[in-house]
């Protein structure tokens, strides 16, 4: 089956700086794929090379089998299949939401589908703002408008660069739900995000970049299984004033005025033995709970260790 996106040995220099370093990965048709990494990891540059925002340095990109080339004219077939939301809030002051959305499909050589237009407007709650100039909208409304604009021509691959940056929690969750629905209707989604919770909830697979290089690529759940570490959350009846030095190996974190203690447990550590040790230290335990690793743990683990991965040249890729 043709991949929605196939990137092979992609490189990009800005001046003498290598910002994307021999990057290769595939996004299968129908999945939601996350591209994660700290600032300056090369996520946006990669997305820009796919979408046409900047030229490919070297390597190859194919969108549903169609090549993205340095020549814009010869990349048309690939670009027609893309819908893109840029990281920055872009507002063309000359148009209202309605005018901009009416024009947008024409840029991709198609006609506006009125039913699809009505559906998008309704789902993204843009009806009250239709006749407002785009530059008069709030940040959250601009973000929803940008999503509507990226989808109005029914792209096969939706590229979202930080889609929920700067939006409040409620709107973020409604955007996630909408993107999931769009994905269920057949659109492949590639997203970059700084919200690891977003990637964890949305993405079937994630790739993690560090300094332009791929340091991990796997199903989200499998990546989390890599981290052989749990967390122990302990509630205390009496507040703890200072952390006993004996707990330092478990990276303790004290909160709720000394009534909540969090410890990181390596796989081989027995919870029972640790609880006994806590009681021996005089801690008055009222309740406890354990949780598995989050994508954030994986991310921190991998990006912190990326320097060593770079020297060994062995990213975790499946």
């Amino acid at each position, binding site marked *: 089956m043709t991949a929605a996106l196939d990137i092979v040995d992609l490189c990009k220099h800005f001046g003498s700086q290598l910002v994307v370093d021999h990057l290769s990965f595939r996004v299968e048709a129908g999945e939601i794929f996350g591209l994660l990494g700290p600032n300056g990891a090369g996520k946006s540059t990669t997305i820009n090379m796919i979408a046409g925002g900047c*030229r490919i340095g070297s390597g190859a990109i194919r969108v549903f089998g169609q090549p993205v080339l340095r020549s814009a*004219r010869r990349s048309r077939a690939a670009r027609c299949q893309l819908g893109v939301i840029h990281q920055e809030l872009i507002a063309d002051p000359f148009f209202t939401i309605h005018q901009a959305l009416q024009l947008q499909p024409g840029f991709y050589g198609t006609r506006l589908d009125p039913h699809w237009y009505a559906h998008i407007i309704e789902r993204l709650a843009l009806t009250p703002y239709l006749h407002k100039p785009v530059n008069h909208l709030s940040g959250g409304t601009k973000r929803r408008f940008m999503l509507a604009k990226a989808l109005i021509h029914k792209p096969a691959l939706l590229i979202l660069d930080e889609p929920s940056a700067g939006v409040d929690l409620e709107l973020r969750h409604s955007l996630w739900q909408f993107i999931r629905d769009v994905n269920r209707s057949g659109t492949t989604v590639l997203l970059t995000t700084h919200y690891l919770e977003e990637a964890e909830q949305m993405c079937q697979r994630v790739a993690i970049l560090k300094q332009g290089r791929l340091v991990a690529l796997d199903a989200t759940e499998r990546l989390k299984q890599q981290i052989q570490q749990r967390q122990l959350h302990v509630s205390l009846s009496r507040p703890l004033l200072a952390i006993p030095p004996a707990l330092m190996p478990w990276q303790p974190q004290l909160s709720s005025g000394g009534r909540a203690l969090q410890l990181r447990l390596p796989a081989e550590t027995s919870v029972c033995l640790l609880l006994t040790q806590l009681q021996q230290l005089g801690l008055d335990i009222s309740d406890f709970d354990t949780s598995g690793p989050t994508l954030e743990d994986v991310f921190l683990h991998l990006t912190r260790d990326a320097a060593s991965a770079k020297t060994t040249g062995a990213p975790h890729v499946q």
Partner: protein
Amino acid sequence: MFNSRRCFTTLLLKEIRRFTRVYSQTLLTPVMIAVLYLFVFGATLGQRISVVDGFSYVQFVTPGLILMGIINNAFSNTSSSLFMSRHLGSIADLLVLPLSACQIVAAYCLAAMLRGMLVGTAVGLIARIFTPLPWSHPFLAALMALLASFLFALLGLIAGLFANSFDGLSMYINFVLLPLIFLGGVFYPVSILPPLWQKLSLCNPLLYLLDGFRHALLGFGELELALSFGLSLAGALVLFGVAVYLIEHSPRFRP
């Protein structure tokens, strides 16, 4: 079904809507300025000035004022549109579109030409209040006006691509465009200049456009009409090639 022509016409429509939405700034203001020039030279000073036998001064200066409106607005439209989209970041929306460099240049230029021609037509119609014009070769006049708007739309596009700030953009307007206009024979015939200045004036591309346009309107010109037309056409074609090359290859447009 993908339709390449629709991509192009949509960009053209967007560029036209961009300037018609702020018509008081993009259409009415330049017409007003030209009308003030016409009033000064037509109803007041012009009656005391005579530079060419057989024509009043306002007749002589009117083709220049029409052409000045055309080229100023064609230049401003492309330069401000491209520069503003680079400045505001909305160029990112343009870069992802399935449009060729040739289509982008053509869409920007056609919208700018339309703005220039609308201003030029309005100035031409209002000028009839002040003086009758012979309109010796109306088809040729339209052709020269289109060529002038095309050439300066291309120059504006290139300026919009190279300008790094509003200051930089105004430098192109104040230190390139305005001297070309004022030293290109809008207000005086080049033949009244000293020989050295006459020779220098021949380096001004606007001189050929203006002389050809004046020739077409009044039946009077200082240069060979074929030379004016040929050089202007050649200049426009070369600039079109340069603009397409820059849009396709320049890192200023696509890093």
